């Protein structure tokens, strides 16, 4: 089974970067892959939860947030290793995966719902001034 309403999505993946001998960051190389995904707007509740998390880490608000359901793994950004999250374009704007979680398929306890195994990823709009 596949994610309902999913379609091919072109994703740019970044290898970890590193500092050069002058202390300047050099991004890792990139590759492009196609995943099967459904891109949706986020609910206000989910947006608030993510913004709260970012503010706890010292960040500020987010501009533009999408949720992506995919049956393939997407990479999120990970500051400890300098990894940039997977990036993709929707309606001419670039988004970067900032948070992800994996749902195993099966019956959700205390609920009549059955889930498909999938990745649920949140992606934020990439502001060119922050690159």
């Amino acid at each position, binding site marked *: 089974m596949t994610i309902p309403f999913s379609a091919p999505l072109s994703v740019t993946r970044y290898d970890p970067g*590193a*500092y050069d*001998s002058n*202390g300047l960051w050099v991004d890792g190389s990139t590759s492009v892959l196609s995943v099967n995904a459904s891109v949706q707007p986020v609910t206000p509740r989910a947006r608030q939860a993510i913004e709260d998390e970012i503010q706890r880490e010292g960040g500020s608000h987010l501009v533009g947030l999408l949720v992506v359901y995919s049956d393939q793994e997407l990479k999120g950004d990970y*500051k400890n290793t300098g990894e940039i999250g997977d990036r993709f374009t929707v309606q001419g704007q670039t988004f970067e995966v900032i948070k992800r979680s994996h749902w195993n398929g099966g019956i959700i306890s205390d609920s009549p719902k059955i889930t498909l195994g999938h990745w649920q990823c949140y992606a934020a709009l990439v502001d060119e001034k922050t*690159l």
Partner: protein
Amino acid sequence: MNEDLIYQAVHSWLTQATGLDGSKVIKAYQNATEPEGLYISVIPVLSMNPIGIIDEEIHTTEGELVTISRRTAMVQIDAYGAGSFGALNDAMDALGNRTIYESAFVDNSMSARQIQSITNTTALKGSRYEQRFTCSIEIEIGYDSTPDGSRGYFDCVEYDVEISEG
């Protein structure tokens, strides 16, 4: 650009003074990961001011007009991790080391002096304390800021002469 010149000079000074690898002395705000272990982050221009009301203009022997700008820039230096005080202390001590000072600053038309005490800014990171120290220096820099061909003055007059037999 003078921000890059300042960063290169400060980077050279800090790596020589502390013995840290070049990749452990980084430019701040690059949206990138923290280096492993002790590292130093540099904000090359915290603020910048001109020295004097107007910039100096020099006529060279070739007849060109060159503008020399002089600025003071405040540079912030933050050290993170165990040994961060020692690293900053070594760096400030090296401002008095002629070899390091000349190669980093004088050879690049700069002078530098410490203007802020080394200050303890240790703070919680997650559930544990991370040792952090900060310090600022002031740099005076002189650089060629001559506009590229758009000064607006005549720098060449062309004429020709036509002679008719009469």
